[in-house]
C-alpha cells in the first residue's frame, strides 16, 4: 500500500485529500502511479495528464517521473507552489 495525498486545486478537483492504494505489480515509479490514477478518467485523467502543470513528491521530497515508488511510500500530487 502507498499513501496518496492531494493538495490545493488538485484536492478540490479530485474531490479528496488522501487515499490508500495497493501498488499493482509493475508499478514502480512516480510516473507509473500517475498513469494508474489518470486511467480512472474524468478529473483524474484531466488533472494528471502528462502536459498539466502539477508537481509531485515522494516521501516529502520533490520527485520526477522516474522517482522509484514502493510499498509504504507517501506520494503527493499538488499544483505549483505559491507561498511566501
Amino acid at each position, binding site marked *: 500500500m502507498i499513501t496518496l*495525498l492531494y493538495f490545493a486545486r488538485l484536492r478540490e478537483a479530485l474531490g479528496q485529500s488522501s487515499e490508500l492504494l495497493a501498488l499493482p505489480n509493475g508499478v514502480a515509479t512516480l510516473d507509473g502511479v500517475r498513469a494508474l490514477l489518470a486511467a480512472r478518467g474524468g478529473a483524474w485523467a484531466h488533472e494528471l495528464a502528462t502536459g498539466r502543470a502539477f508537481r509531485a*513528491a515522494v516521501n*516529502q*521530497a520533490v520527485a520526477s517521473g522516474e522517482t522509484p515508488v514502493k510499498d509504504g511510500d507517501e506520494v503527493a500530487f499538488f499544483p505549483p507552489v505559491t507561498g*511566501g
Partner: protein
Amino acid sequence: MTVRVQESDFDISAEIAALRAGNPKIGAIASFIGVVRDLNEGDAVSTLTLEHYPGMTEKSIEDIITQARGRWQVMDALVIHRIGTLKPLDQIVLVVVSSGHRGDAFAACEFIMDYLKTRAPFWKKEQTSNGARWVDARASDDAAAQRWRQ
C-alpha cells in the same frame, strides 16, 4: 535554525531578540516580511487562505536554510510562515538572517525568500470581488529562484 508554520501572527522585534540570543559576533540582521495586499491581478482581495503540506513544508524550509548556510556566512536563520485565512494588511511570512556581515545577511535572506516562493509547499486561495480562485505560480518567482543556480 528555527522554522515555524503557524496560524498566529508574529512580532519581528521579539523574533529578532530571540534569534540574536545575546550573541556578540552578530553584526548584521537582514529581514523580510511579506504582507497581504488588497489587490491582485486587478481584483480586490477580501481574504487569502493558505494551505500547506505538513511535514514536507518544514523539511523543505530547513533544507533551504541549510543550503543558505552552505553558501554564505550565516550565524542563524528564522522562517515563520502563516497558514489559514488572512486578510489584507496581515503578515504572511517572516525571514530573518543574522551574520557577521551585511552582504551575507542580505543574500541569504533573499535566497531563502526566493526559494520559499518557488519550492516550499504552500498554496494560496484568494477570495476576490470576482469569486474564489487559486493563485497561479508566477513566472517571475521562478526566475528569481533560478538566478541562484548560476
